[in-house]
C-alpha cells in the first residue's frame, strides 16, 4: 500500500517495513513519561500454577506453610513448563482453584499467599559468573529461575536458550518493539535499565552461542533507542540497535525478523531455522537478575494505563498482585471502564474480575473508556478489502470469515486459517466491525479439537487392530499347541497299539 512505501521513504534508515499492518493510535504518552515505580505489598498474592505455555507446575507447598521470598513453591513439570517462586515472604492460606487471568474466567490451580509484610528473602540461587559458566549452566539457571517470555507469549525461556546445537544459530534479536498501543513497560525498562538489559542479552547470547545481538526498537521510542546505544556491549558482544517503523504488529516474532533482516521465516518453521532467536527485552532483564544475583522471576514491570485509570503509570509489581491493587495504586478507576484488559488492546485479554492476579506475561493492565474503543454494532461485510490490505500474513480475512460462518472449517484452513497469527489488524480496521479474530480463534480451536479427535480415533483403531492381531496370534498358537498335543496323543496311541501287538496274549500294561 502507498502509506507503507511512503513511510519507508520518510525514514530510509528503517529498511524493511512489514507488508500490511495497521497504525492504531498508540496513546503511549499516557504513561511513557512515568518512571518505573515500586508499589506497596498487596494484602494477598495469588500465584497461578500455570502462567506459561506448557504443563502447569506442581505445587510444593500446602495450606499453612510459611514461605520466604524467592522460595520455590511450584516445580516445573515436564520439559515445557516453568518453576514458580514465592514473590514475598508470608503464609500459604490456600492451594486451590481461583478464576484465571484469562477471558474464560475458568478457575485454575492457584497458590494464595498472605504476605507477612517483612518481605524476607530465603536463600537465593547460587551466583553464577556467566563469563565462566558453560552455556548449559546458564540455560539451567534460567530454567531454575522460572523465566518465561515476558512479551506475552510466556514460552519458557530456557527451552529457547537450549536451541543451540539443534540449529546453526548466529543472531539474537532482542524484541523491544512494543508495538501494542498503550504499553510502555519495555520502553521504560530500556530507558532506565539499559545496562542490565544489555548484560542480560550478552548472557543469553553466550547461552545460545551467538555473536550477533540486535536490539529492535520502534521509531516512536527514541529515548529507549539512545539509552541502548549508550550501553551497547553485552558481555563483550557489541549490540546493534535497530529502529523499525512504528507499525503494528511489528513485534510479532516472524515479522520482526523479516523487518530487521529481510528474511522471511517459512510457514510452520521456527526462526531458529534461519539461525535467529528472538527474546523479549524484559526477559533479558530477568535473565540478568537471575544469573548475576540469583533472584528468580518474582516481579515484572506492568503498564497501568488507559483513560479509565486516574494516574497511568509503570509499576514494578510482584507476580500474583491482584489487578485491583494495581489499579488502586494508580489512583483507581476514573468512571466505569468500557473494557478492562490484561495486556495490550490488540491482543490482550479482557478480565471480568478485578481480583485476578497479574502473571509473568502480563505487560499491561488497561482500563479503556468508551471514547477509546470506538465500538459500534457489526454490519455485514461490504467487501471493502481493507482487512486484506491490513493482514500482515497475506490472508483474506473476509473470506476466512465467510467460510467459518458457513461452518466450512476445512475450506478456511485451505485459504490459510492456520497461518493467521491472531494479531487483530483485520478486526481493528474492518469498517463493518466484524469480530473476525474471534471467529478465527474459535475455528482454530475447533480444528485442533477435530484433529485431536481424528488422531485419537486413528490411535484407537490402531490399538484395536493390534489387539485383534495379538488375539489372532494367541489363538493361532493355541491351535498349534492343540494340534501338536493331538499329534502326540495319536503317536502315543499307535505306539501303544504297536507294543500291545508285540505282546500277544499279554495284558496291556498301563
Amino acid at each position, binding site marked *: *500500500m502507498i*502509506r507503507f512505501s511512503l513511510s519507508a521513504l520518510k525514514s530510509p534508515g528503517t*529498511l524493511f517495513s512489514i*507488508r500490511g499492518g*495497521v497504525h492504531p493510535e498508540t496513546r503511549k504518552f499516557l504513561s511513557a513519561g512515568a518512571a518505573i515505580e515500586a508499589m506497596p505489598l498487596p494484602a494477598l498474592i495469588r500465584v497461578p500454577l500455570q502462567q506459561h505455555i506448557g504443563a502447569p507446575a506442581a505445587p510444593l507447598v500446602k495450606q499453612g506453610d510459611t514461605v520466604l521470598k524467592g522460595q520455590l513453591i511450584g516445580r516445573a513439570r515436564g520439559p515445557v513448563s516453568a518453576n514458580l517462586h514465592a514473590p514475598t515472604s508470608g503464609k500459604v492460606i490456600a492451594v486451590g482453584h481461583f478464576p484465571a487471568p484469562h477471558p474464560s474466567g475458568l478457575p485454575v490451580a492457584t497458590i494464595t499467599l498472605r504476605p507477612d509484610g517483612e518481605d524476607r528473602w530465603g536463600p537465593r540461587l547460587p551466583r553464577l559468573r556467566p563469563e565462566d559458566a558453560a552455556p548449559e549452566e546458564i540455560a539451567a539457571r534460567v530454567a531454575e529461575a522460572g523465566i518465561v517470555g515476558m512479551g506475552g507469549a510466556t514460552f519458557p525461556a530456557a527451552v529457547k536458550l537450549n536451541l543451540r546445537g539443534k540449529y546453526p544459530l548466529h543472531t539474537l534479536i532482542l524484541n523491544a518493539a512494543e508495538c501494542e498501543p498503550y504499553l510502555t513497560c519495555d520502553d521504560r525498562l530500556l530507558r532506565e535499565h539499559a545496562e542490565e538489559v544489555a548484560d542480560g542479552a550478552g548472557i543469553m547470547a553466550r547461552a545460545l552461542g551467538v555473536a550477533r545481538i540486535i536490539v529492535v526498537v520502534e521509531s516512536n521510542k527514541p529515548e529507549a533507542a539512545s539509552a541502548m546505544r549508550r550501553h551497547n556491549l553485552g558481555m563483550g558482544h557489541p549490540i546493534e540497535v535497530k529502529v523499525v517503523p512504528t507499525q503494528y504488529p511489528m513485534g510479532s516474532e*516472524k*515479522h520482526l525478523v*523479516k523487518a530487521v*533482516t*529481510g*528474511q*522471511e*521465516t*517459512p*510457514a510452520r*518453521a521456527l526462526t531458529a531455522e*534461519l539461525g535467529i532467536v528472538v527474546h523479549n527485552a524484559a526477559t533479558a532483564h530477568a535473565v540478568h537478575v537471575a544469573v548475576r544475583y540469583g533472584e528468580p522471576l518474582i516481579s515484572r514491570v506492568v503498564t497501568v494505563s488507559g483513560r479509565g485509570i486516574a494516574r497511568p503509570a509503570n509499576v514494578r509489581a510482584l507476580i500474583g498482585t491482584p489487578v485491583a491493587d494495581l489499579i488502586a495504586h494508580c489512583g483507581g478507576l476514573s468512571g466505569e471502564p468500557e*473494557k478492562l*484488559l490484561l495486556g495490550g*488492546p*490488540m*491482543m*490482550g*485479554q*479482557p478480565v471480568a474480575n478485578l481480583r485476578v492476579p497479574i502473571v509473568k506475561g502480563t505487560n499491561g493492565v488497561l482500563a*479503556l473508556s468508551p471514547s477509546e*474503543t*470506538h*465500538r*459500534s*454494532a457489526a*454490519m*455485514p*461485510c*461490504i*467487501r*471493502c*478489502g481493507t482487512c*486484506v*490490505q491490513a*493482514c*500482515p500474513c*497475506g*490472508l*483474506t480475512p*473476509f473470506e476466512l470469515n465467510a467460510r*467459518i460462518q458457513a*461452518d466450512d472449517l476445512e475450506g478456511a484452513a485451505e485459504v490459510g486459517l492456520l*497461518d493467521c497469527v*491472531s494479531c487483530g489488524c483485520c*478486526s*481493528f*480496521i474492518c*469498517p*463493518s*466491525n466484524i*469480530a473476525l*479474530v474471534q*471467529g478465527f480463534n*474459535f475455528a482454530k480451536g475447533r480444528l485442533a479439537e477435530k484433529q485431536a479427535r481424528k488422531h485419537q480415533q486413528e490411535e484407537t483403531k490402531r490399538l484395536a487392530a493390534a489387539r485383534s492381531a495379538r488375539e489372532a496370534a494367541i489363538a493361532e498358537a493355541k491351535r498349534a499347541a492343540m494340534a501338536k498335543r493331538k499329534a502326540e496323543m495319536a503317536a502315543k496311541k499307535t505306539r501303544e497299539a504297536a507294543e500291545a501287538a508285540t505282546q500277544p496274549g499279554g495284558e496291556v500294561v498301563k
Partner: protein
Amino acid sequence: MRLPQVASGPHFHSMFNVPRTMVAVMVCLAPATGFGLYQFGWPAMLLFAVTLAAALVFEVLSLVIAGRPVLPFATDGSALLTGWLVAMTLPPWAPWWVGVLGAFIAIVIGKQVFGGLGQNLFNPAMVARAMLLIALPVPMTQWVAPMGLKDGPGLADALRITFGHAPGYDTMSSASVLGQVQSQLDAGRPMPEILGGMASLHDQFFGLMAGSLGETSALLLLIGGLCLVLLRIIQFVTPLAVLGTIFALSGAAWLIDPDHFVPPLFHLTSGATMLCAFFIATDYVTAPVTTAGRAIYGAGIGALIWVIRVWGSFPEGVAFAVLLMNAVTPLIDTYVRPRIFGRTRSGKPLPLAASAGEKP
C-alpha cells in the same frame, strides 16, 4: 453458525465504520454535485432530491419486506450514496419518474434482491443507468446546455419541468458531447473539424457543457476523488488503472489515426470517465479486494469504456464497462490473492535455503 461470546482482541477499533465511509464519499462527491446542480438549475435540484428520497424509501421498504433490521441499515448511508450516484447519471432535466424508476432499479433490483448491503454482484447505480438507457432511450438522452441557476428556469417552471409537461423546454435539448462526436463521425466528418465545432477541452474540464450531473466538471470530480485517496477510503490503484488504460489506448489510436479517433484528453475529461474512475470503479462491494486485482479490474473497465465509445452503439460506455467487469470480479478474486507470509505463491512453505539467500 453462532460463535460463543468469549471476546478476543482487538479491544478497540479504528475510526472507520460503514456510515462514516459513506459520508466521506458523499462529502467528496459534493463539490462536483453542487456545481452541477448550480449549472443545471432548479430542475436538476428537484430531480436530485426526488431520486435520493426515492432511494431511501425503497431501501426502507425492502428492509421491512425482507424482515431485516431497518434502523442500522437505512442509516448506514449506502442507500443515499447509491441514490446519489444514480442521480449523477441522469439527464438533469429528466422528469421525476425517471429518477424514481432509477432509484427503484438500483435499490431493489440492484441491491436488495441480492441480499442487501455487501451481497450484490453488480454496481446498483450502473444497473439502474444501463436499464434506464435501454428502456427509456429518449428521456435518457435529452440533455440541456448548462445555463446557471440565475439564467435557467425559476422554481415554478422547474416544478413544471420535473413534475409535469413543459413543452417549451424540449427545444432546448442538445446532445451530450460524446453523442455529438459519435453522430458526426457517423456522418463522415473528420475528427479535427468535429472537435473544432464543439465544447472545448477547457469547458469540459471545468464542467461548462451539456451532460448529466456527473459528467460536468472533471476537475471537481478529480479533486474529490483525490481527497478520497488521501482519506485512504479508496486505493489510488483503481482510478489510476482506469484512467491510465483509457489514456494509453486512446492515445495510441489517436497517434495512429487522428482523423478518426478522439484525442486522449478528450476521453479523460468527457462523459462519466472521472466519476467512474474515482467513485464507481472504487465501489467496495463490486470490485476485487486485492490491490493487484483492482489494477486488473480498473484496466478492464478503462479498456471497455474506450472500446464501447469507439465501436459500440452507445456513445457512452461506462455503465456497460463497469457491469461487464463486475461479472469478472469473483474470478479475479479467486485467482489474484496475496501471497501468504512464509509461503510461496502456490501455498507451499518457503524453502529454507532460498529465503536465507535473500539475506542483505
